[in-house]
């Protein structure tokens, strides 16, 4: 056991009848890490979380937490606590009774119990709310109470199932930061499940991107976003323009891709471990494609016509039709000084430019 493999998931599979919810997953989670399980619904992320909590038994494989095998340990003896998606606040108990629920077995005196509960209420900035009932709380408060309830026993791991899913957008953004701060404050390993890529990017130290019961890629948010290794991951985190083709030449940190739709694209970006002739996609993020109204004189570019633009306030998404390509190319521009309004109407001819560094080579699916 080490801090590197504080939680160790080894060849975990979980089958529900013919469905393989988790299919031979192996990875480690570090001590004190804010770790996200990210993926679309049905990817097995919640099943994996529930196996960590002990609510599901793995069909195959083993889970270790802090060096201890979890197989024979029931949920109520595991050093983990969970924040449920619905928060699961006991409706028949007060806020203080909810928070103190995990302490019942500790044989504390009433004064000690009250003190611990008060500390927990302070932690979530809800001092004085102890006597309230569950029905009197707002969504954000319910979430805080669920957090305090799960943290009061200082578990080794806190599991969070879509913790912010039930909150509205403003509150969600605020809670993302608060959760992050809280995790640093208590120093407990947080493992959370989300289908929201923005949430995962904002809060986590590392993210496991999951699909079809497998963990595809595990990395920090910046690396996952900027150097994805799979087309799924590139597309799921943010958005991506894919130009399919094959490697024309490769070597010396440089590659040219002969695309089927828009001619050749040069890349000096990540993932250079391909050989000539390999089927690849040259992938470029929308924010890395800039719109130019004059024909560039140097660098990489392609010509297109504005098909439509979506104004999003702080930025705009502009869809550009490029000749020979079926789907429009998506670009994202900052609306600095009203730049979005100058893109012009439909069918306006523009040029798209990008730097070769931002072209990511990905295997084709």
């Amino acid at each position: 056991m080490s801090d590197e493999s504080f939680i160790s998931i080894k060849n975990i599979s979980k089958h529900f009848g013919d469905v393989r919810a988790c299919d031979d997953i192996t990875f480690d989670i570090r001590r004190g890490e804010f770790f996200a399980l990210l993926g679309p619904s049905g990817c097995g992320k919640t099943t994996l979380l529930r196996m960590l909590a002990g609510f599901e038994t793995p069909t195959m494989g083993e889970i270790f937490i802090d060096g201890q095998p979890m197989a024979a340990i029931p949920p109520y003896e595991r050093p983990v606590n969970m924040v449920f998606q619905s928060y699961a606040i006991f409706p028949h108990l007060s806020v203080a009774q909810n928070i103190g629920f995990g302490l019942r077995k500790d044989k504390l005196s009433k004064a000690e119990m009250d003190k611990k509960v008060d500390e927990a209420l302070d932690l979530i900035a809800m001092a004085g709310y102890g006597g309230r009932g569950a029905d009197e709380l707002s969504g954000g408060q319910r979430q805080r109470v669920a957090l305090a309830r799960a943290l009061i026993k200082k578990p080794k791991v806190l599991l969070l199932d879509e913790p912010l899913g039930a909150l509205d957008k403003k509150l969600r953004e605020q809670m993302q930061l608060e959760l992050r701060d809280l995790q640093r404050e208590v120093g407990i390993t947080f493992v959370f499940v989300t289908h929201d890529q923005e949430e995962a990017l904002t809060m986590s130290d590392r993210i496991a991107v999951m699909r079809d019961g497998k963990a595809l890629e595990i990395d920090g948010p910046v690396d996952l976003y900027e150097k994805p290794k799979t087309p799924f991951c590139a597309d799921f985190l943010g958005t991506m323009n894919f130009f399919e083709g094959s490697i024309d030449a490769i070597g010396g940190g440089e590659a040219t891709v002969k695309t089927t739709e828009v001619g050749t694209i040069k890349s000096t970006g990540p993932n250079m471990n391909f050989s000539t002739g390999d089927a690849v996609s040259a992938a470029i993020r929308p924010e890395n494609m800039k719109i130019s109204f004059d024909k560039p004189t140097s660098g990489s570019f392609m010509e297109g016509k504005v098909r439509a633009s979506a104004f999003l306030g702080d930025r705009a998404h502009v869809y550009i039709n490029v000749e020979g390509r079926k789907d429009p190319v998506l670009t994202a521009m900052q609306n600095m000084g009203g730049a979005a309004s100058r893109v012009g109407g439909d069918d306006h001819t523009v040029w798209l430019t990008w730097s070769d560094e931002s072209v990511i080579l990905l295997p084709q699916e």
Partner: protein
Amino acid sequence: MSDHMNETKNIMKKKKILPVGHFRGLGAWTFAFFIYLYVPIVVLVFYSFNSNRMVMNWEGFGISWYLKAFSNNNIQQAVLNSLIVATVATACATAIATIGALVLARGGSFKGKTLSLGLITLPLMVPEIVTAVAVLIFFSSIGMNLGLGNVIIAHITFCIPFAFMPIRARLEGMDTTLEQAARDLYATEWETFRFVTVPLLMPGIVAGAMLAFVISLDDFIITLMVGGAGSTTLPVYIYSMIRRGLTPEVNAISTVLLFFSIAIVTAYWIVSKKSQTKTVH
């Protein structure tokens, strides 16, 4: 996200509720309907305060028939029998129904689950006279004669489905993640049951018990068949009184029974209201 969408859907559904308030003449219909429902009962209660010997001949206000009814030893015995039967039958039926509901709602899937569910609720559909005859023949064929015991056993059988329905409904509507949360917070299966499942299930159990109690208290056909001499319950005794001639005493004792039932329902309503406000404060 999907929860949110469901919520909006529900709100939209609510808005589409039939605007019955706009139907013309609905008020009059409703009024007529309530008259139809309650006039006989009002008449019954009214004449219970008649001081005349004849039921339908109003002479003056008096509570003499109540006093007479209360001092009637046979009525006292019948009331006592009714209460014993209803209490014991309710306790047993509710316990069995609770266990049954827990198994059917929480026991996962097992062979014969649907069949069990059907069998436990089937007595609701069986004509009471059939049950009565069947129980009577069964008891006499095995030679069982426990007096009031026979009546109690018979009552338990038909009370179970009535107690079962609200308990199961409550269980089905209960969020199972609450029980998972308890187990996650270091509560064993038994503690989870004791501290989370039972308190949350309590309104269902109370509702089921009340229903069973009222059904048992009210039962006539089965009790008449099964109950021998000495195990006469109140409804059976009232019937025998009527056969001997209608006096306001029958009205008086029926009125008492009526208000007793209303009292139970009110008590339940207050208790459930209180437990609701308790979770709010």
